[in-house]
């Protein structure tokens, strides 16, 4: 079974600075997807960024980018120019590639609480 580990329960960064959140995972699959989700106090889970395992290029979405190291099974999230609205819980998640009607629920890590200091 696949597992996702986030070793940083809490991170703090000054507004406008850059922060990196870490994630490692374990799987025997070769074709899968990795995600970062943001969960503010409202509890709404919001997709931040997605990475397909077969792509070597790291995904980027505006101020958010990832460092995907497939051999090391590492998937970190970098947030540049941190803003107060970035404060939230961040979850790393895994999903193996669909193949013929199989289950595709997400496996989540325990999360990292990101604090933005003004």
């Amino acid at each position, binding site marked *: 079974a696949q597992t996702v580990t986030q070793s940083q329960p809490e991170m703090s960064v000054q507004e406008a600075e850059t922060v990196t959140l870490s994630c490692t995972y374990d799987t025997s699959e070769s074709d899968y997807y990795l*995600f970062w989700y943001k969960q503010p106090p*409202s*509890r709404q889970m919001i*997709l931040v960024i997605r990475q397909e395992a077969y792509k070597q290029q790291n995904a980027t979405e505006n101020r958010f980018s990832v460092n995907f190291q497939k051999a090391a099974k590492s998937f970190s999230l970098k947030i540049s120019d941190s803003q107060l609205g970035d404060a939230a819980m961040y979850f790393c998640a895994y999903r193996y590639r669909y193949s013929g009607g199989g289950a*595709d629920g997400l496996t989540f890590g325990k*999360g990292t609480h990101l604090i933005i200091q003004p």
Partner: protein
Amino acid sequence: EAGVAQSPRYKIIEKRQSVAFWCNPISGHATLYWYQQILGQGPKLLIQFQNNGVVDDSQLPKDRFSAERLKGVDSTLKIQPAKLEDSAVYLCASSPTAGTVSYEQYFGPGTRLTVT
């Protein structure tokens, strides 16, 4: 486009009572998921439906939890009888089809259950 709707938003019950949560997915989404998120942890998948059929319920405690998705649209998750350890946020999510690469799962606001 309306998002995933869930009700109630909050529920407090005593142990051994029963409770039900309701989810209305985004219109046209074939796949529906229920996740349990215990405080301090990431969400854990309980059950996945495609249309009105169960795709995965391997982590659903079937002695007390049940779920249904009649007519392949709305879904209800029930707990009977509830235990203290069932206190959690229950998240519902939907996606257009099962497992298609380019489709993400859209989450509802969740129901926070407290069992006393």
